[in-house]
């Protein structure tokens, strides 16, 4: 990609601001059949936890109007297996790799972070916002005090910059973002999924074994855009925004709201080429509007 889209997230240089979102892109391999991953601004790993997790039982996906509910429950091979089996492949891709880390308690977060100190990841996305695991990160992510607390402890021991991924389900998101910034976070990403519920009226039963699940996709875009704007107004650290982005126009709106980078989630399932089309769309927009770099419209609203 060209200079039109080059974007600095602190001192990390992204070729472009477009990054597939955690959990919607596996560890990238599946999408190599569609395009060269080096075209991406970066990519973000599936949410990892210290121990391997087999995820939630029962139904894991449910479609809603313009949305998708998921209850994957952080199924993942664990940090060790990731470092051994996925990282050697990922590190050779010419793009920024973000490692997404979840945890069930302080200790599991910290041990996971320590293990990641052994690899040369460029950015860690601290997931304190997964609504799908009972003893999970969201407990930290819905209150400014606990969010700040865990962020501080993680920042203290990590040799990598920490971007904290916020939940849309808690108290005022700007307060939480400020607490994370104060605790030393080098970036904020948002939003994780909105907590929702599905009932199968035919079966007279809830759809998900875990009762509630996470809503994502185009349906959530207005909420995600509002929260992105609130957080961009509240903090000085860069923001990586997501939530329902499905084309370059949506991506542009998040950038106009102040986001430095944007992540592409659910729409990957609808259109595997979406990230590439968004990159191309943003570039065409720069050319058409006579922008030297997309950064010229960042935060202009």
């Amino acid at each position: 990609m060209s200079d039109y889209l080059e974007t600095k997230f602190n001192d990390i240089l992204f070729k472009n601001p477009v990054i597939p979102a955690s959990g919607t892109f596996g560890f990238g391999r599946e999408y190599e059949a569609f395009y060269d991953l080096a075209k991406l601004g970066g990519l973000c790993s599936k949410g990892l936890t210290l121990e391997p997790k087999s995820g939630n039982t029962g139904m894991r996906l449910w479609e809603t109007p313009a949305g998708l509910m998921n209850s994957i429950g952080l199924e993942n091979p664990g940090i060790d297996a990731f470092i051994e089996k996925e990282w050697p492949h990922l590190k050779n891709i010419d793009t920024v790799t973000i490692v997404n880390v979840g945890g069930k308690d302080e200790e599991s977060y910290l041990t996971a972070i320590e293990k990641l100190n052994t690899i040369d990841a460029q950015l860690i996305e601290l997931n304190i916002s997964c609504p799908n695991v009972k003893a999970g990160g969201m407990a930290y992510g819905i209150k400014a005090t606990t969010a700040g607390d865990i962020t501080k402890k993680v920042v203290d021991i990590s040799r990598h910059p920490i971007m904290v991924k916020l939940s849309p389900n808690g108290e005022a998101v700007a307060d939480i973002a400020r607490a994370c910034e104060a605790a030393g976070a080098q970036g904020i990403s948002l939003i994780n999924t909105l907590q929702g519920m599905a009932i199968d009226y035919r079966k007279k039963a809830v759809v998900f074994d875990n009762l509630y699940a996470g809503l994502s996709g185009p349906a959530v875009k207005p909420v995600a855009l509002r929260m992105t704007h609130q957080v961009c107004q509240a903090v000085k650290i860069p923001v990586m925004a997501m939530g329902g982005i499905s084309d370059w126009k949506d991506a542009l709106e998040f950038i106009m709201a102040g986001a430095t980078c944007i992540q592409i989630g659910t729409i990957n399932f609808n259109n595997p080429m979406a990230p590439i089309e968004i990159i191309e769309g943003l570039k065409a927009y720069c050319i058409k509007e006579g922008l030297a770099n997309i950064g010229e419209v960042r935060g202009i609203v």
Partner: protein
Amino acid sequence: MALVQSNTCVSPGIYKMTVDFTGAVKPGQFFMLRAWDKDPLLSRPISVHNYEPGKLTFLYQVVGKGTEILSQLQSNDDVTIQGPYGNGFPEITGDLCVVGGGIGTAPLYYLVRHYQKQNPAGKCRVYLGFRDIAYGADAFAALADEVVLDVGGIITHKLTVLPGETVVTCGPEIMMAAVASAVPAEHAVYVSLEAHMACGIGACLGCTCETRSGNKKVCKDGPVFGREEVFNV
């Protein structure tokens, strides 16, 4: 994008659609189909019912919004197809016994055709079970050595597996489970599972099923599994 060649109703609520496609396609594989923008949001997995170069056929039942939209496509309309995905059925040597239930018969037709091409001397028997109305039995009858048809009953009640047969079954999970426990242990039994799918390619972990060797993805590691992997037999 693929061009629809034809799309016709073959039985109440059951449609057969043929589209332009050329590539390597194995029986038991599926495609992700869509003919809409974002309502519904996701593509729909549909098995390969038949294939020859330039001509890919699906047989599907209208059960909701996605299949309803598919059923309205007409010749020369565009449909987006991604695939083929999934492992497909294994190459079968020896004799073949297929057991299909309802729309689960869809992938078995291409399996039988393929099997016969690979095993000109092999014998192939087909059991078909339907709740109300049978469809496609004639087509199977034109291929197979024997077709046992059941409407309204329980197909496993009629099932007898002959020595040397490999069994392949696709249909409601309860039927496949019954087949899996009915067939004596010396026969290999393969089942084709269903799951709600988002990506179809192994990226979302939404279609996971528990197997003897841990979680597997129905879309990528399956949809075809050995019975002992997924059923308690």
